[in-house]
C-alpha cells in the first residue's frame, strides 16, 4: 500500500526514537544553549565509517533552521495559491515536505561552496540567498524577479547557485564541471549537484560519476529521493532503488531527509571527504513531497492519500524539529509560534509585491542574448519589426 520510498522514510521511525540529552546543567525549566540528539542510522556504501548519529545543535542554529524551513513551507504554499489563482503560469514544482534537505545541507556548506539543482528549486534559491520576494516575483514573471521574469520557476540563479534547470539530469554534469573549475583554481570549496530519484537513471549521470571519480572532482552528488519520479514510484522506474549505491565506485551514504540535523551531519561528512581531495561522494536523502510533481498534478492518482497524510502527521521535518527543540528545552513553543507569525507576515508582504510589481517592458525581451556585445538588431515576429539587444 505504501510506496517503496514512503516505506523507507517510515522505516526510519521504526528504528529507535530520537533521544536527547540536556547538555548545559541548568534548571530543568530553563532554556539551554545547545542540545544533542541521536539520528536514525545512515546506510553506507563503500565506506568504513560514516556520519555521526550523535548530533549537537546550538539554540541559535536550531531556530535558524526552523525559521528557514518554515519560510520555504510558507513560500511554497503561497506559490501554490498564486498558481491556483492563475497568477503563476506554466510549471511550478513545490518543495513542501523536502525542506530539511535544502536547509540541512546549506547548514553544512558555506556561501563559497556551489550548488546546482533541477527544477524543484525554489527552496534552494532561498537558502542560497535570494529573498522570497524575488523568488515569488520571478514566479509571477515580474521585473523584480531574480531573473527579471525571463526565467520563471525553473531558471532562478544566485551567487554560486546555478539554478534551477529544466532538463532532467542535465544539471549533474554541469555540477561536476563546476567542481572541475574549483579543483582547477585550487579552491577548497565543493559543488553540490542535486537530482531526483527519476533523474538517477539518466545515462549522463553515470557518465558524470565516471569522470568525477576518474578526476577526483570535489562534487557531492545528492539524490533527493522523494519516492516518485513524477507519477512513477521508484520501484517502477529503477531496477535498484538503493540510489546511494548507484555510483558503484563512488562511496555513498543514505540519510534521513526528514531530519534536518541528520542531513546536516551527512553533508558535513561528505563535504569534508570532498574537500580533502578524495573525490566525489554520493548522498541520498530519503524525503517526501506533499504536493504533486507540479501544480498540474494532484499527486493522488499514483499514491494513496493516506500515505501523504501519514507523512505529514508523523514525519514532517518542521514539526519534527519543533518537537525536538521543545522537548530538549532549547526553544519554547511561544517563540516558535512567533517565528511562524513573522514568516507568515514576511511571505504575505512578498506575495503582495509579487502580484503588483510590473513586468518588464516588451523591448527588454530582446536583451540578455549575448554578454559584452555592442547593440545589435534582433528580429521580431514579422519582417518589419526589430528590437535592439543592448
Amino acid at each position, binding site marked *: 500500500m505504501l510506496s517503496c520510498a514512503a516505506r523507507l522514510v517510515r522505516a526510519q521511525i521504526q528504528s529507535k526514537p530520537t533521544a536527547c540529552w540536556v547538555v548545559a546543567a541548568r534548571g530543568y525549566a530553563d532554556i539551554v544553549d545547545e542540545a544533542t540528539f541521536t539520528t536514525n542510522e545512515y546506510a553506507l556504501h563503500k565506506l568504513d565509517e560514516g556520519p555521526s548519529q550523535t548530533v549537537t545543535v546550538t539554540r541559535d542554529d536550531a531556530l535558524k533552521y526552523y525559521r528557514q524551513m518554515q519560510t520555504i513551507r510558507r513560500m511554497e504554499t503561497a506559490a501554490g495559491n498564486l498558481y491556483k489563482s492563475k497568477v503563476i503560469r506554466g510549471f511550478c514544482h513545490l518543495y513542501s515536505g523536502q525542506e530539511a534537505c535544502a536547509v540541512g545541507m546549506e547548514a553544512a556548506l558555506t556561501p563559497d561552496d556551489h550548488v546546482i539543482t533541477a527544477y524543484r528549486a525554489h527552496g534552494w534559491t532561498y537558502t542560497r540567498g535570494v529573498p522570497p520576494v524575488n523568488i515569488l516575483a520571478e514566479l509571477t514573471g515580474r521585473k523584480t524577479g531574480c531573473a527579471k521574469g525571463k526565467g520563471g520557476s525553473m531558471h532562478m540563479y544566485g551567487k554560486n547557485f546555478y539554478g534551477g534547470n529544466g532538463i532532467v539530469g542535465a544539471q549533474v554534469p554541469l555540477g561536476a564541471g563546476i567542481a*572541475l*573549475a*574549483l579543483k582547477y583554481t585550487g579552491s577548497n570549496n565543493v559543488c553540490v549537484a542535486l537530482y531526483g530519484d527519476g533523474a538517477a537513471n539518466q545515462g549522463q549521470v553515470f557518465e558524470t560519476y*565516471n569522470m568525477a571519480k576518474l578526476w577526483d572532482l570535489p562534487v557531492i552528488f545528492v539524490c533527493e529521493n522523494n519516492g516518485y519520479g513524477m507519477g512513477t514510484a521508484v520501484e517502477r522506474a529503477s531496477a535498484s532503488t538503493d540510489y546511494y549505491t548507484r555510483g558503484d565506485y563512488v562511496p555513498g551514504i543514505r540519510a534521513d531527509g526528514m531530519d534536518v540535523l541528520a542531513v546536516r551531519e551527512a553533508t558535513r561528512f561528505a563535504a569534508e571527504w570532498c574537500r580533502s581531495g578524495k573525490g566525489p561522494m554520493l548522498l541520498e536523502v530519503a524525503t517526501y513531497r506533499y504536493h504533486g510533481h507540479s501544480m498540474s498534478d494532484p499527486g493522488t492518482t499514483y499514491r494513496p492519500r493516506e500515505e501523504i497524510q501519514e507523512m505529514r502527521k508523523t514525519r514532517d521535518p518542521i514539526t519534527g524539529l519543533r518537537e525536538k527543540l521543545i522537548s530538549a528545552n532549547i526553544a519554547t513553543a511561544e517563540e516558535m509560534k512567533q517565528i511562524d507569525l513573522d514568516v507568515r507576515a514576511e511571505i504575505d508582504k512578498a506575495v503582495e509585491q509579487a502580484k503588483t510589481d510590473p513586468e518588464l517592458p516588451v523591448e527588454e525581451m530582446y536583451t540578455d542574448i549575448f554578454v559584452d556585445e555592442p547593440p*545589435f538588431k534582433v528580429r521580431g515576429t514579422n519582417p518589419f519589426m526589430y528590437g535592439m539587444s543592448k
Partner: protein
Amino acid sequence: MVGNISRRNMAALQTLARRCSTSIFKRHFSVSSPVAAQMTVRDALNTAMNEEMKRDESVFLLGEEVAEYDGAYKVSRGLWRKYGDKRVMDTPITEMGFAGIAVGAAMAGLKPICEFMTFNFSMQAIDQVINSAAKTFYMSAGKQTVPIVFRGPNGAAAGVAAQHSQCFAAWYGHCPGLKVVSPYSSEDAKGLLKSAIRDPNPVVCMENELMYGTAFEMSDEAMSEEFLVPIGKAKIEREGTHCTLVSHSKSVGLCLEAAQILEKENIFCEVINLRTIRPMDEETLINSVKKTNHLVTVEGGWPQFGVGAEIVAKVMESDAFDYLDSPVYRVTGADIPMPYAATLERATLPGTQDVVLTVKKSLHIQ
C-alpha cells in the same frame, strides 16, 4: 593551392633575380622581398589554441584523444606535452557528460574549449550546447555567462558514409544565444578560433577535416599573436560584378575555382566567404547583391532549411530584392544521406560544374 604556390615561387624567383642583378650591375643595400608565410589550417588552429592557452590560464582543452594522441586529426598536437594534464584533458567517450562538464566549468568561470571529434557526435550532447550553454545568459537575465567554445570538424569527409558526414551549420545556426563560425582558410581558422576563445559567449566553431592539411598564405598580421578575425563579419575573397557567390567553409574554395573557370568566359563573380553563420553578415551580402544583381549560395549541407535557404529568405525580405535580376539559387549537397561508394559520394557533394551551371542559369546564359 596551386595558385598560392606558383605565386610563392614567383616571389622567390624575383628575389633571386633582384639579388643577382644587384651584385652584378650595381652596388646596393641588399633588400629581400618578403616571402609570404604558409600555414596549414591544422597548424593555424593549433597556433590559435596554443597562443590563447599561453595568454589566459583559464583556457583549457578537453575532448577525446586531444592529449596523448595529439588529437584525432592532430589539431592539438604538442599541446599536452607543453601544458600538461590539467589544461589538456583526454575524456572518456561520453559526449553528453563531458560537454556538460565543460559547460559547468564555463559557468564557474573557466574558459573551456570542448572538442567534438566530429560534430556528428555533438548530437549526443546537443542538449548541453543548446539548453545549458546557449540559453542560459538569457534565462538568467544576464546573471550567468557561459564562455565556452565547442569545436571540431563538421560536414563531409571522404568515404566515411552517412553517420559521419552531416553538416550542422543549419542546426546550430538556428539558435539564438549561440555564435556559430565556419572558417575556410588558415587565416579564418586562426583568427576566428582566437576570437571564439576570447568571446565570453558560447561559440560553435565548425572546422572541416578535408581542409586541415591545406596550406594558405598568411600575412605578417595573421602571424602575430594578437591577430583576431571578428565574429559576424564576412570576407569578400574575390571581387566581381556579374554574380555573387556566397559560401562558408570548404565550399568557399569551390566558389573560387568556379569563379576562375567563369572568368575565362568573361563572367566575373564576387565570392563572399561568410566566415560566421550566426550572426550572419547581412550587410555585406546585401551590398554585394545590389552590385551584381545575381546571387547563388553554395554549401555542402542539405538543402532543406539550410544556410542557403536562410540567405534566400534574408535577401527576399531586404531591399536587395528589388535589385535581383534572377531568383536566388542554392547549390547544396544532395538531399540524401551520404553514400559510401566513391562515385556516389562525389555526386552527392557540389562540384565546380554545379556552381558554374547555376551561375549561368542565373545570368540566363546558354
